[in-house]
């Protein structure tokens, strides 16, 4: 058997999304066209937009479709920065590269100053740091971006408090991992901007959305036909948009079932390897993500060995060359670079079963033994 435990990377498309996409692929019409076919496709897109808006708790006009979560994050970080005369960008120290890298780019090319909010050992941002920062330099801050939950550990962040502390400073959250897994309301949180992505929720690859307050006009990354409030030009990807809405509406994700699987898995891991450490365990976490340090191992060896046993997991975020580097997320939580490179992420999703957990646990002891041996020879 093979067991897929990398749902935080991408998760299977749900049947209703595949059905909706197939139907839409057969349909002719550019949603920007004025004729019958164009209007028909436009209606599908706008129906989808309304469904998504209902799920997100925002106005339909606040949904701006993009080609990915990364694009939505770039549009938000760069757009909100360019839209402000202020130069300070505040993000957490555990952001995904899709937030961290545009912020660093703005530092390098646009004169921004970047301040990163530290996190506790449990992986939760230090709100006192943020309070003090806003009190001292609030008038200089162009935007604050803190992810709703972390992609490597699943640790959820106190976004409502961030918005409260921020006051009038625009707050963006990367909700790619949280969306449709845990309760999430753009409106109730009082957010300025939020990012979601299709393929993490049973929708297709290549579709994301920036939720951005209406009547806010941020500079665009892509210029052209003026679609999406002139913030994201480009022919709307109707089949993917329709499929994303179908996935969200289907709601195949059962948080309590996934959470139970994750608990069984973590209990089993700790029974087999009492020295294993579950990162972020004491903080509120997403139901499906488990980030575990196996001291004395190297995660790239473990991944290879798990993969050869037909269990798919992850070493965290991969970098350009596919070379595993110490996770900035785990390092921010106080792990050494050695320990952070001894960690694996297992992420559970709607399609997993208890049999998957049992199988993964059955191969784990040998994998860890071999991983320990491989690491030991490397250190001789």
């Amino acid at each position: 058997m093979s067991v897929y435990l990398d749902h935080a990377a991408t998760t299977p498309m749900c049947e209703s999304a595949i059905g909706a996409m197939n139907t839409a692929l057969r349909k002719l019409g550019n949603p920007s066209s004025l004729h019958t076919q164009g209007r028909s496709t436009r209606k599908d897109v706008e129906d989808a937009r309304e469904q998504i808006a209902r799920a997100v708790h925002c106005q339909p006009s606040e949904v701006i479709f993009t080609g990915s979560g990364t694009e939505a994050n770039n549009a938000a970080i760069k757009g909100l920065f360019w839209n402000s005369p202020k130069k300070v960008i505040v993000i957490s120290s555990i952001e995904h590269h899709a937030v961290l890298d545009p912020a660093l780019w703005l530092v390098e090319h646009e004169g921004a100053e970047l301040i990163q909010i530290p996190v506790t050992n449990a992986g939760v941002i230090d709100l006192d740091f943020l309070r003090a920062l806003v009190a001292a330099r609030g008038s200089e801050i162009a935007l604050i971006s803190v992810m709703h939950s972390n992609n490597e550990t699943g640790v959820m962040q106190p976004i409502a408090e961030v918005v409260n502390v921020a006051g009038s400073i625009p707050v963006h959250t990367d909700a790619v991992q949280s969306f449709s897994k845990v309760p999430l309301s753009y409106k109730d949180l009082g957010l300025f901007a939020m990012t979601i992505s299709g393929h993490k929720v049973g929708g297709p690859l290549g579709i994301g959305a920036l939720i951005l307050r209406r009547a806010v006009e941020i500079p665009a990354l892509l210029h052209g036909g003026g679609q999406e409030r002139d913030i994201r030009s480009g022919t709307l990807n109707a089949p993917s948009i329709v499929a994303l809405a179908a996935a969200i509406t289907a709601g195949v994700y059962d948080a309590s079932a996934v959470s139970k699987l994750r608990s069984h898995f973590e209990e089993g891991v700790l029974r087999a390897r009492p020295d294993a450490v579950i990162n972020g365990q004491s903080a509120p976490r997403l139901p499906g993500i488990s980030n575990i340090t196996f001291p004395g191992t190297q995660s790239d060896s473990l991944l290879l060995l798990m993969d050869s046993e037909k269990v798919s997991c992850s070493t965290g975020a991969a970098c350009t060359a596919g070379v595993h580097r110490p996770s900035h997320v785990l390092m921010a939580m106080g792990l050494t670079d050695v320990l952070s490179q001894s960690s694996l992420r297992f992420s559970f999703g709607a399609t997993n079963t208890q049999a998957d957990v049992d199988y993964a646990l059955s191969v784990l002891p040998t994998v860890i033994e071999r991983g320990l041996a491989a690491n030991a020879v490397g250190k001789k």
Partner: protein
Amino acid sequence: MKIIAAMSGGVDSAVAAARAVEAGHEVIGVHLALSSNPQKYRSGARGCCTIEDSHDARRAADVIGIPFYIWDMADEFHDEVVENFMSEYAAGRTPNPCLRCNEKIKFAAVLDRAKAMGFDGVVTGHYARTRESNAGRTLHRAVDPLKDQSYVLAVLNREQIDGAIFPLGDTEKVDIRIEAEKRGLAVAQKPDSHDICFVPSGDNAGWLRDRLGSEVGPIVDQDGTKIGEHNGAYTYTIGQRKGLGLSVAAPDGAPRFVLKIEPVTNTVVVGARKDLAVSSMRGERAIFCGPAVGAAPTRGFVQVRAHGAALDCTYYVDGAHLVAELDEPLLGLATGQAMVIYDGDRVVGSATICETA
């Protein structure tokens, strides 16, 4: 067997991996990331281990249909190969980092790790052959004399040879490229890499100067008379003729060559061509990949450069040293280079040259 295919992103290692799969092995492709700050692209035929190379390796593995991973060996490579390269030059010797990498990384760090993880060996795209004999597995030259890489593999010990598979040794390079085309491997016409992978500019002297500094020192003749200046003795190689920039001509007007590098005094000694002649060499850190060599003089061949000639010699072990006495003198031989002894096409062993006479 369950084996790791070390895949550089070049054509040779890709075909080697494909042949290993066809031979019935369970093969997993691994690309070694040897630079912690890799360049995006290769510049011409220089360097390796760029991000582009790792993509090429991954693509080849996907086409062959084997799993593929990247192993970060940048720290090991830096400690064992790059540091050694610098310290050897600083000590006035001329190291061969490719041998060092084979000895310490590809067939040590990688092989050890592979074995610990439950694999039986490592397959690479080196041009060399192995044969089974009563004395165990032995290492031999490849059939393609232009590509033969037995010289750079001669640092492997018996255990390492036992864990190595070289599927390309029986084929000429030109045919490997044709085979790669037939297999649909996009790297079929990728240029071979040359030079030293971590010196992508190809300018070894400049690279060393940047790291070791460039202290001006004297260039002297054999009488000790100063006849010029240099910017760092380690940027010279024994036998070097060009780029000496001497201000005083030799009395006989003949060209002069680097005879000796004295790192302590930062002095480069030059002299006539005939003074380069070497008729015997001693090597330290001897490694025998076949039956061990004793004190009894034995006839064979010695090779002192990666693509140098096999020179007729008599060799024997003298205490801790491997000694080769040449039938005909050789001009210009740097310490630090490897001396590799052959018995016909079989690699007897190797040592690092520490003394010449």
